[in-house]
């Protein structure tokens, strides 16, 4: 951008009310990962710490507690992935965030859901559209280290996600969430518009971890079985889950896989610069027009005042000639 353009843009910015530049540089933005953890930001912070500790993610992380802010920012171009993991079901209004999260996903965004966010009962749209599932209801549990864990078995393998996790069966903390079952109580898969991989499943095919590549959107990772809570001492306290290295690895690999298989961020990275440049030029042109118009109005006023003044002057002169000057 030329210096003149920049100057004109600043003028234009000023003219548009008292507009405040968000920042003044135009350096490349780092990507942003949103964690919507609702009323339990410490849970979001724990997941954030996991991501920050992994050198593969060069992203800023924003932990969001309230629905309106999540709705506002989820479709921003910087958003590389979003992790939806509120522990409270009703209060976090998962149904309400559906439209804007679905729009983000269908635009090619990467989404990860943990617990109730993947369950049709609490998030009617997120489950089927984004995660291609209806929920989880694993009944097969056992007691380990003084608390109950659910038992899952490995099914599909995606090397980028499974990584070094060879564990089978896999034990994870969680709780009951619901899904559509047939007469035998087995999980009923729903039709999906893309490729679905169930990486781990419980008894009666209740899915624990599902990787979904949508045909007309982004990619998602769902952990429907991990309905944890924030109360220490409970069987499904999230702190217990975070202590499991398998969870950490599947979570991070899954997030990386979803990002790598979602085109939105890279696409917008390319088009954003162009959009900004176009808008800057448009504003500069308009500012130029505004300046021209202002000058035109100013000159017109000057001309009118000049004529008025001249008329007055001529009048005074006429009076002087008529009444004051004596001709010999």
């Amino acid at each position, binding site marked *: 951008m030329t210096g003149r353009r920049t100057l004109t*843009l600043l003028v*234009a910015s000023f*003219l*548009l*009310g*008292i*507009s*405040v*530049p*968000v*920042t*003044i540089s135009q*350096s490349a*933005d*780092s990507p*942003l990962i*949103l964690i919507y953890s609702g009323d339990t930001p410490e849970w979001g912070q724990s997941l954030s710490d996991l991501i920050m500790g992994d050198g593969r993610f060069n992203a800023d992380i*924003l932990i*969001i507690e309230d629905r*309106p*802010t999540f*709705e*506002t*920012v989820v*479709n*921003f171009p*910087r958003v590389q992935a979003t992790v939806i993991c509120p522990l409270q079901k009703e209060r976090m209004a998962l149904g309400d965030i559906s439209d*804007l999260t679905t*729009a983000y996903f269908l635009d090619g965004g990467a989404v990860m859901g943990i617990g109730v966010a993947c369950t049709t009962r609490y998030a009617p749209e997120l489950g089927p559209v984004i995660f291609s599932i209806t929920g989880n209801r694993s009944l097969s549990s056992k007691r380990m280290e003084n608390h109950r864990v659910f038992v899952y078995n490995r099914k599909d393998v995606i090397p980028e996600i499974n990584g070094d996790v060879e564990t089978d069966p896999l034990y994870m903390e969680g709780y009951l969430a619901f899904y559509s079952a047939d007469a035998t109580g087995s999980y009923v898969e729903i039709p999906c518009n893309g490729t679905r991989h169930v990486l781990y499943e419980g008894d009666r095919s209740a899915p624990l971890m599902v990787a979904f590549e949508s045909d007309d959107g982004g990619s998602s990772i769902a952990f429907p079985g991990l309905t944890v809570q924030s109360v220490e001492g409970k069987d499904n306290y999230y702190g217990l889950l975070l202590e499991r290295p398998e969870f950490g690895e599947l979570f991070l690999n899954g997030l990386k896989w979803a990002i790598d298989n979602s085109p939105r961020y890279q696409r*917008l990275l390319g*088009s954003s610069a162009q*959009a*900004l440049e176009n*808008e*800057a030029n448009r*504003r500069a*042109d*308009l500012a130029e*027009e*505004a300046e021209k*118009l*202002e000058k*035109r*109005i*100013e000159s017109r*006023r*000057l001309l009118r*005042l*000049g004529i*008025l*003044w001249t008329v*007055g002057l001529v009048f*005074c002169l006429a*009076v002087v000639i008529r*009444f*004051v*000057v*004596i*001709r*010999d």
Partner: protein
Amino acid sequence: MRLNSSKGGLIGILIIILVLSTLLVLSLRREEIGSPVYLAKNEHPALFQSTESRGKTMIFNFGVICEEPFKELEIRFANMFMSPEPDFVDPDFVPNASDPLTIMESRKDIQMIKESLGNVTIPFDSIEVETVAGNVTNKKTYRGIVYDFSRTLGLFVEPSILDQIPEVFAVLMSEDGEVIYFTGIPDFFYEREENIKYLSIHYNQNETTYEEKTDLLIDVTPVGQAPRIGSLIFEDTGKDDQVLFQMNVESRLRTLPETIEQVPFRRFIVHYIRAYANGKLEVSEFNMIPMEATGWNV
């Protein structure tokens, strides 16, 4: 040729006239030039009421006349509703002891939005506003600030998504220190297809109308097809060109934001209209309309 000495008084008067007229011309020269956009009409209901119980249609009118030709005339609408006091970055922040701009900048949600936007050189709109609530005998003046991110977001986000996102915020403070908050969307009205029954946009003799979608009428352009994000753009307008906007609204509690279900937030709604000529803000009408607290079927 000589001067008539008996006309000294007249000469004095003429000199005074000359000096005064020169001063007048010079002072007029310094006078601020008026807006080239003339606000012809800005009407809204005196009270925002439930249609369900009152059976009333509320009519909004807005009109401007171009006093100069413009390359671009843009009219932007936003609809805001009262919202609870937000969280602040500093939990000990006391808004009542501050000013609207500082309050806005101290909001956690605003900081998150700005942080999420990142290094975007295109500024968002930040506009100072003033409005009066009440009547002649009992009125209260509020001054404040509006942050509207829609213009910046519009560069990256589809319009169909944009007008669902709460991205217009206002913080108002009264003379006695009361602070009220508004959050809204950039559109003619919230949930346009539910609330707007009729919308008409006149540009000189050309009229475009939109109506509520019904099964009975087939030759009707539904409200959903009206220009998105409450933005009307007219290019290469001429001198004396007129734009008139009319909207009929019928609202029920279920068609308004959920915060309105709580009585304390049923005090005011805001219909905020701006007109930009060649990108310059010329008209800013912050219509804060009292809202009926009762009469809504909860």
